[in-house]
């Protein structure tokens, strides 16, 4: 049985797809057979971030409608043996998803994979609800600013009331907080909420803190999940995050302002 993890946030543009790509890739790096499912029907992005946009033939909606089987729609990653992507349909909208169809596809994926990462669309409408409904765990991606935190709070409410686990009275979805675009300098200046501030409001277990990093945009543009850029701070932070997700204890990094060395101070950096 696969573990189904939804990557969600409520708010758009906080890094859900970047996180889905990074965490899916990270789990595959650790040897787990992983599939990342793009639930953002009509606004397909995951394929770009994963660098497989030219190999999309069939998509999630085709599989739901029985126009293609899973084998035809799954795209195998070129870098990693045990990583697959199920792309969204670009020509349809969120109403193309329905619970029965999604459940059937997830059940089928469940037989073959260790992890199913559901990349949720923004919002709290049917698309986002479909993405979170069947989840066992949730990674709530939050930026350190008030509107993102409030939207995350809203999504946490949905997770605890609108999911299958909630409706069937099963143990609740395991919730993780992932803080992205974290900038310790701006936190120090009081321009950004700190980890403690966000923790105080959302009160769920912190899974990781991803620093704001140029590497993320570069990675997106080149279709390489940022976690593969092990030199970068964001890549390392995602590696730590995946380690925590699989039960390891890893200290948090990139929380404090880096002390600049003499050379850095002279030459900038």
């Amino acid at each position, binding site marked *: 049985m696969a573990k189904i993890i939804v990557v969600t946030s409520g708010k758009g543009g906080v890094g859900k797809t970047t996180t889905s790509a990074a965490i899916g890739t990270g789990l595959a790096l650790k040897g787990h057979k992983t599939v990342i499912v793009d639930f953002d029907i009509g606004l397909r992005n995951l394929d770009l971030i994963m660098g497989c946009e030219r190999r999309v033939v069939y998509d999630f909606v085709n599989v739901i409608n029985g126009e293609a089987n899973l084998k035809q729609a799954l795209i195998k990653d070129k870098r990693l043996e045990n990583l697959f992507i199920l792309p969204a349909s670009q020509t349809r909208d969120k109403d193309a998803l329905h619970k029965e169809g999604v459940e059937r596809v997830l059940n089928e994926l469940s037989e073959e994979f260790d992890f199913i990462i559901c990349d949720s669309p923004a919002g709290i409408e049917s698309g986002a609800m479909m993405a979170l409904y069947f989840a066992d765990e949730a990674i709530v991606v939050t930026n350190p600013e008030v509107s993102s935190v*409030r939207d995350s*709070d809203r999504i946490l*409410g949905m997770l*605890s009331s609108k999911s299958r686990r909630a409706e069937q009275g099963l143990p609740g979805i395991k919730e993780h907080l992932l803080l992205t675009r974290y900038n310790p300098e701006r936190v120090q200046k009081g321009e950004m909420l700190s980890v403690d501030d966000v923790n105080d409001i959302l009160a769920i277990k912190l899974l990781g803190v991803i620093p704001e990093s140029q590497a993320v945009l570069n990675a997106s543009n080149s279709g390489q999940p940022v976690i593969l850029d092990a030199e970068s701070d964001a890549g390392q932070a995602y590696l730590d995050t995946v380690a925590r997700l699989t039960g390891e204890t890893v200290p948090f990094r990139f929380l404090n302002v880096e002390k600049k060395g003499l050379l850095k101070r002279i030459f900038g950096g």
Partner: protein
Amino acid sequence: MVAMSDPIIELKGSLFPLSVLYCQDFSVASLRQELSNKLAQAPGFFTQAPVVISVENCEQIPDFSAIKQLFTELQLVLVGVCGADATLKKAAHAAGLAALQPPKAGKAEPAKAAPVAAVTPAAPTVITTENKTLEQNIRSGQQIYVKGADLIIRGTVGAGAEVIADGNIHIYGALRGKAIAGAGGDASKKIYCYNMQPELISIAGNYWLSDNLQGDYWGKPVCIGLQDGQLMMAELF
């Protein structure tokens, strides 16, 4: 000194929920019939309940003494009349009844054309459910309502969440959303909260927005209640 200035008795204005009886026919026979039917539907529920009788659409002076007698027989306590004009007031006073202001307009009144007598219990007198205890955070967008009882939350009420109870509200965590106690109109209800940073608090319709609450008590454990129609706040510890 202290003892000398202490008054032996004190008169203080307070608000109480009272049931108001609206009826068309004020004859004792008709009232006996209709009230007995009503009481039979909920035996014991209205036992010794204080009742005010609305005489707004009363055309001739009813026999208040006989009505009072009837109420006593039916194990009800007739407190007074409301909506009385000068003549009716006089008659009520003569029967030892108080003349009260009619309840504020806009409240749910039964249709005046209703042919039968109807006792409308004021909402907060009824305790219909048990207290509700939640051991979880109340997230933005969630709404919790407890009818006729207290709400106890062991967790945080997030910004954009609403917790509402006809009774008291206890929050053993931060309150960042809205808390509405005494929602049924009971002014004696209170809000207790461990860390007060709300968007709004309200008791029996009297409310404060977060703008009015910035200051000494912000982020503190507090108790909020109504005193003489004014919201009052005090530190819990």
